[in-house]
């Protein structure tokens, strides 16, 4: 159904506890890091200081320094920017492509177009998502950051398509659609004014939940060396580079891992609050993988 305006207040109420507070603070810091990293990082640039390499966490360097003497905190903040931009771009691509495909397939449900779209969706489902992402990155070339976003998006397209299709299939049978048709509304108008608004809530919930998955997947790609490439900083690649220093400099591994964990956790908490705010009566369900 079309989201009732009270959902924002209900969602906010669900975050009014210590855990929700932590989630909101983390998201606020990330948002700041995304828009104005200079405002957050103690050291303006990622310049190297070979003399200061492998310093453990201290007041001057809260997350320590890496092999080249770079301040890890600064790297993390710039990495946050990459992670969030790639994640947002991937969600946007998947949402646009998947929801459009689902809208068309659902509106003309049972037609040849529907059949074709759903067969293509089935094909994407046959591949494990990380394998699909790796293959697409290899094809498009990880040098461009956009191809990482597209690779991550592709695995999410079928989910959106199926979600929107099933919603549209039930909505098009509603009486208000027949009424709209009766007063002479065009197909485009019916889609825009009467069908799309009814998919907003499920799309919102799926997008926020999807963002957690995208962040984890991006970290995995970058860890394997096929995600975000230098000079763009990335948490996954920080982990790739720090792995060999694990015995001597564990904080180089701990800090990016903590950043990934906190981000995914915060996004997940907010997503859960939005879901519960939109559908207050449904019981808590497990995350869709």
């Amino acid at each position, binding site marked *: 159904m079309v989201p009732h305006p009270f959902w924002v207040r209900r969602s906010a109420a669900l975050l009014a506890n210590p855990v929700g507070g932590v989630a909101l603070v983390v998201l606020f810091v990330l948002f700041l890091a995304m828009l104005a990293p200079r405002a957050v990082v103690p050291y303006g640039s990622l310049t190297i200081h070979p003399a200061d390499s492998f310093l453990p966490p201290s007041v001057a360097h809260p997350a320590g320094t890496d092999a080249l003497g770079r301040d890890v905190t600064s790297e993390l903040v710039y990495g946050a920017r990459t992670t969030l931009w790639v994640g947002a771009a991937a969600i946007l691509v998947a949402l646009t492509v998947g929801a459009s495909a689902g809208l068309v397939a659902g509106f003309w449900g049972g037609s040849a177009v529907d059949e074709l779209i759903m*067969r*293509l969706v*089935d*094909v994407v*489902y*046959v*591949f*494990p*998502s*990380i*394998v699909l992402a*790796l*293959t*697409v*990155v*290899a*094809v*498009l*070339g*990880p040098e461009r950051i956009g191809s990482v976003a597209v690779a991550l998006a592709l695995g999410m397209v079928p989910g959106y398509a199926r979600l929107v299709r099933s919603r549209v299939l039930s909505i098009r049978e509603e009486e208000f659609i027949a009424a709209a048709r009766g007063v002479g509304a065009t197909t485009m108008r019916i889609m825009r004014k009467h069908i799309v608004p009814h998919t907003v809530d499920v799309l919102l919930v799926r997008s926020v939940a999807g963002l*957690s998955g995208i962040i*984890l997947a991006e*970290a*995995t790609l970058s*860890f*394997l*060396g*096929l995600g975000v490439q230098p000079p763009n900083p990335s948490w996954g690649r920080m*982990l790739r580079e720090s*792995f060999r220093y*694990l*015995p001597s400099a*564990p904080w180089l*591994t701990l800090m990016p*891992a903590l950043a*990934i*964990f906190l981000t*995914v*956790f915060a996004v*997940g908490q907010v997503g859960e609050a939005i879901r519960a705010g939109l559908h207050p009566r449904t*019981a*808590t*369900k*497990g*995350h869709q*993988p």
Partner: protein
Amino acid sequence: MQRYVLGRIVIMIPTLLLASTVIFALMRTAVGGDPVLYIIDREEAAGQARLLRHELHLDRPIGAQYLDWLSRIAIGDFGRSFRYPMEVRSVLIERLPATAELAGLATALALSIAIPIGIYTATVPGGLARFAASSTTVALCLPDFCLAMALIYVFSITLHWLPSSGYVPLHYGLLENVSGMVLPAVSLAAWYAAVWARYIRSAFLEVRGADYVRVARAKGLAERAVTYGHVLRNAMLPTVTIVGQNVAGMFGGTVAVETVFGNPGIGRLFSDAVLGRDYPVIQGVVLLLAFVVSVSSLVVDVCYGFVDPRIRYG
């Protein structure tokens, strides 16, 4: 039943064909890299590159390459690796046991964690259940390779209990094999255990309110009998589906964990192949995984018939 299974297999074929076409087209129109240049590395060796292209049949029309490739697949020939002096089929067969063992162990481990936690958090209210539920949230937010590195730091580097890398095939000794598999299996299992525990919990809560559960209670069955005989059996139905899908996906999901631990499995083979643009190997792995996913979804559907007597396939 037989007709249903046959029908499902017939439907599987066009999907797999379409999947293979997509992958083949994707790889060959790749702007990401000319495989020959990844082997030769030098643009100036143009004559040599042409020779190598000819040798690998990369100079033939794309349609001919595809048909050639497909007809070979049909008889189980995946072609030769660009980088290893081996048939792709032999590489796959060589790498499969390590991944199958890892996925099998991780599945067993994840199930043995998820089922008790799922049931416990659904039936027993209180602090411990809340703690267990929060643990699943934590496990869902951590990438498997991060957990892997944390485990290596604690159990290999600090405590020296378990090796941090190295796969010992089973026939060299059970203990050596298992001790090398513990950390990878735990790293891989944690996320799945959390997902499945949540599924079991929500399925359990959903079933518990059903009419037949109330009837079972009303006729005086003990709580235990209701929980295990009526609620659990029905709650396992949706769980079977998700577990089946995830286990198939796990074969591909081992990429990062196998890289961390240096396990010579399918996942690491795949990431190496992608890094080196070894097209025949990439195609072989992707096709193998697509096959595994398709077959397992078939198996899940058939299993459904056994778990749920209400479902009868014509």
